[in-house]
């Protein structure tokens, strides 16, 4: 049992035991209240620059598998738990959490009072911290935490976004089938083992003329792409710094703006490009994409005290009065009152703290949500939003015909 130390920028120290990789990690410390889905959390690129405390104390119980990933590799800077399970149990598990984190160089600390840490972050706000197994000097660790750059104004998107455009084929995970590639329709694995439950099946017949969607990748969660494909879209993923002109040249039916790490003000180039796209094509934004839209409409964003990170956040759809339980992962929020364009209306609010969770343009085919309708991890209540995006593209197509690629 190797000792590890967690130091926060305000001088608070937690002594625990190392797990995962040894070494030192720096990042903003935030807490996540999901009881399941740690592998999806680890691989969510939005956590770049952050170290995650899981409030549920027993993590790693069902191991790690090859499927439950939201990107190529874990993006978190560090991982903080009460107890990491050494003996996982699940039919899909291929390794335990400790070895997975070691394989990917993620520094972890366990055996600390994560509830005390969570209460501290709740009361004093998310703050920078350092986990170390090599420097156990409290003073020097606190100094390192204080010196850490934080999130404000930083462009973390560049560190997690793709660098080349590519086509996405994979559809959402199904029990007994795993992932299916678009168009193939055949079973990928476990064929003949068990029937898929009808209620959870993806639509089997794709739209005869799929909607072409260009998805800006700011650190996109793969499940967003899977859900888009499942809803009948041909998805091309492009880097976050792709120009509006390039996108328009591709003549998509719609543009998707993804989630991503850090401060939306750290990616001004994306805001500029989105401003140019407004009014030309249907746009759907999630999380960072929603904040980028807020900025592109001329509004402002602000940092929340400790953010929303978890899978039990109630969001009320103001248009229907219905409540959906959602997955959320954001430290910044849009100040809707600051948007000068009064055609932008509030559509969703968080029932816990009444912050903005969704908006739409009343004249243009544009809408966005702060939360994660793709879930993964978390409840599926909001997955209807992907269909809403497709419906929006369909109605635009009816109005203007299928978009035509411009040739230079």
């Amino acid at each position, binding site marked *: 049992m190797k000792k590890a130390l967690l130091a926060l920028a305000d001088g608070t120290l937690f002594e625990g035991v190392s797990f995962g990789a040894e070494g030192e990690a720096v990042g903003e410390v935030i807490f996540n209240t999901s009881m399941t889905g740690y592998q999806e959390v680890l691989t969510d690129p939005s956590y770049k620059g952050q170290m995650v405390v899981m409030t549920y104390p027993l993590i790693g119980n069902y191991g790690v598998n090859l499927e439950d990933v939201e990107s190529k590799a874990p993006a978190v800077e560090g991982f903080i738990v009460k107890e990491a399970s050494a003996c996982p*149990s699940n039919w899909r598990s291929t390794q335990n959490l400790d070895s997975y984190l070691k394989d990917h160089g993620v520094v972890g600390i366990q055996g600390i*009072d994560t509830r005390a840490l969570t209460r501290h972050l709740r009361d004093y706000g998310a703050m920078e911290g350092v986990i170390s197994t090599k420097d156990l000097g409290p003073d020097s660790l606190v100094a390192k935490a204080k010196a850490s750059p934080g999130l404000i104004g930083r462009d973390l998107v560049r560190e997690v976004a793709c660098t080349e455009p590519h086509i996405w084929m994979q559809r959402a995970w199904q029990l007994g089938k795993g992932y299916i590639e678009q168009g193939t329709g055949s079973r990928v694995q476990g064929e003949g083992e068990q029937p898929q*439950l009808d209620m959870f099946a993806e639509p089997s017949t794709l739209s005869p003329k799929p909607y072409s969607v260009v998805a800006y990748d700011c650190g996109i969660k793969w499940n967003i792409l899977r859900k888009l494909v499942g809803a009948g879209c041909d998805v091309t993923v492009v880097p976050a710094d792709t120009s509006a002109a390039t996108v328009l040249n591709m003549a998509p039916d719609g543009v998707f703006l993804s989630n991503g790490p850090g401060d939306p003000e750290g990616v001004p180039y994306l805001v500029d490009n989105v401003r140019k796209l407004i009014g030309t094509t249907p746009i759907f934004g999630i999380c960072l994409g929603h904040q980028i839209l807020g900025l592109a409409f001329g509004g402002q964003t602000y940092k929340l005290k400790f953010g929303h990170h978890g899978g039990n956040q109630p969001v009320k759809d103001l248009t229907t009065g219905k*409540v959906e339980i959602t997955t959320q992962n954001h430290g910044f929020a849009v100040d809707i009152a600051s948007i000068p364009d009064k055609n932008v209306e509030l559509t969703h609010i968080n029932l*816990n703290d009444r912050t903005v969770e969704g908006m739409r343009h009343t004249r243009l085919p544009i809408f966005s949500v702060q939360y994660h309708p793709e879930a993964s991890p978390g409840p599926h209540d909001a997955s209807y939003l992907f269909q809403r995006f497709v419906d929006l593209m369909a109605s635009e197509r009816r109005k203007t015909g299928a978009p035509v690629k411009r040739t230079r």
Partner: protein
Amino acid sequence: MPKRTDIDKILIIGSGPIVIGQACEFDYSGTQACKALREEGYQVILVNSNPATIMTDPDMADRTYVEPLTVPILEQIIAREKPHALLPTLGGQTGLNLAVALAEQGVLERHGVELIGAKLPAIKKAEDRDLFKQAMQKIGLEVPESGYAHSLEEARSVVERVGYPAIIRPSFTLGGTGGNIAYNRDEFDEHVQWGLNISPVHQVLVEASVIGWKEFELEVMRDLKDNVVIICSIENFDPMGIHTGDSITVAPAQTLSDKEYQLMRDAAIAIIREIGVETGGSNIQFAVDPKSGRMVAIEMNPRVSRSSALASKATGFPIAKIAAKLAVGYTLDEISNDITKETTACFEPTIDYCVVKFPRFSFEKFPGADETLTTQMKSVGEAMAIGRTFKEALQKAIRSLEIEAYGLESRIFRRGKGRETGGGRGEVSEADQKLVRERLRIANWERVFYIADAFRLGMTVKEIEGLTAIDRWFLANIEEIVKFEDHLIGFGQRRGGSSLLRLLTASAMREAKALGFSDRRLAQLVGSQELTIRDARKRMGIEATFKMVDTCGAEFVAHTPYLYSTYERECEANPTTRRKIVILGSGPNRIGQGIEFDYCCVHAAFALKEIGYETIMVNCNPETVSTDYDTSDRLYFEPLCLEDVLNIVEREQPVGVIVQFGGQTPLKLAIPLEQAGVKILGTPPDAIDRAEDRERFKQLLQHLSLNQSPNGTAISVSEALRIARQIGYPVLVRPSYVLGGRAMEIVYDEASLQDYMARAVQASPEHPVLVDKFLEDAIEMDVDALCDGQEVVIGGIMEHIEEA
């Protein structure tokens, strides 16, 4: 939607007498519902035949009828009271069945009474297994292959289709009564005939067994706007094939990945919608194949259930109270979360601890009863424990049971010898090794202790998993506990050394306490005394900390002090400086100690609150009103053991502790608490002892010149025989300090007395046996009296119908 104003008089039907499968959890849910509805200004008409309930207290409902729960009586009540609505989902299966009968016989229609919460078609769809199966197929969910039979011939043709092992479930019985598993034709014929006999409609369901699959439950709530939330997920430690009421269960689910959990959540939401439960809570059970993740829906309760009570206490979300408010038209987002105040009830609780429920059995009361656990419920109560890890919660749950177990004590290694204190493996006989395997293979309530012994015998997780079908995650956690014990006692280590010294290092002690070891168990292991360990521990500065149950994983500030102990860095107990009194509850229900003691504790809390004291409740029974977070000012969900109670007393510094309302459980703690310097309020421990200790009681009676049937106290077999000869047969024999006639027998001759002494008790100076002359043809009277130290008031005198 605001509440309905077109109704103002609501009828609630209670669950009647306590039976296996239906205990005080429905007093808890009914009481919550009455309070919630009256808070909203509705008139509540309550019918229940069980007077030992909080809900039948005069101030709980506007009118209370303590009457038999039958259709004719209920019709008379309905005709007289003319309620506008009947809320059928909070009185257990009894209340629900009666509501169905009232609806089907046209009573409700005749008197214009509306069913709220769940309508008749929804109840039928959930309760009738055929309709349920059709509904599941409609939404694409799998159910186990099954078929109904009204005769043995029909049943045989069904089993040809579903195969062995097959589960036989009689229709419309409670707690799985009459349910059985048949592995072959002979067993099948026997179980089917029995099932047909006890089913009121002479019908059984023959179902393909998913024995050995993992069992899960979700507690679901829905409102009139179709908002649906999951309050809690529960994973059964014991696999399918054992009634949930008899299974050790754990919240939240531990071994489902998010993808699998969300599928189950989707399925639960689809089920509550398809069944059509309009508002309120439902409990839905699933089985999952551990090899492929394949999931089947097992059943749904369209009402508040035992699991709902557990889920409420496990999360802090008051399911019954919210269900009552939803039934009168509120939506989840209109109801505030009492605990956080700033958020609403429309969310899914997230917890940052682990909850273990352990069933309590009373097999010792029924010598010869089949102790095998099957699909028919046999437990009579349960204890719940909260810890930061499964290991801690499990060990706390075990000592909460009050079965003289303070940890995973060995069943085969002799106390004070062998492995328990560091001996070798060689001392275990072949027969004992065989016994362990047998006890692993065939489910029984002590199985968890035999699992620990299996690890002590060197068996692996894989072997034990093969024998028990219990998930390896749980087994590995038990192995960790055993490994720590081994380390402590120096098992397998070349250097001997003192195990006590090994424990008395800060890191070992801290680890032991974090693993949930009680001081008493540690004392057993290292050959010391509980209080010695406690003192040593406290000198090391290692003390219990208390954390809050807050529904939200600390995301929001909690305003209700609902606490559990653990060994962590930060303590949130934050005691007030008010004058306060601790009330000790009665622990798990068992025969002879049921809901009546909870009733007393709750009233003690109400009365003390009235005269200005802060009230602090300590209890570990999740089915009770006393463990509701708003019954007392502060609630500690803790085992009723000396160690745990002392921790609370030291933290809270109360004026005193009341032990006299919780039955035998707290009474047993009176003397040790007093010795530890705790002020016992009410009847002093010495007076309790004078009443409980037969020798002292006899002296008192002699001093008062009162008659007593001739008797004596024996600490050995020969002494018992001598006393019996002296006073003459028949004699009544029992151990002292017992409850409800446990191990009590009437003995008519010497041979039987010898047999009893050998079989039932081991007399010793610490455990004397009482021998009383049995009075034949005597009448028995009870006198209830109240004394303030000077005056005595007689509350009532009751004559027993049965002779003494």
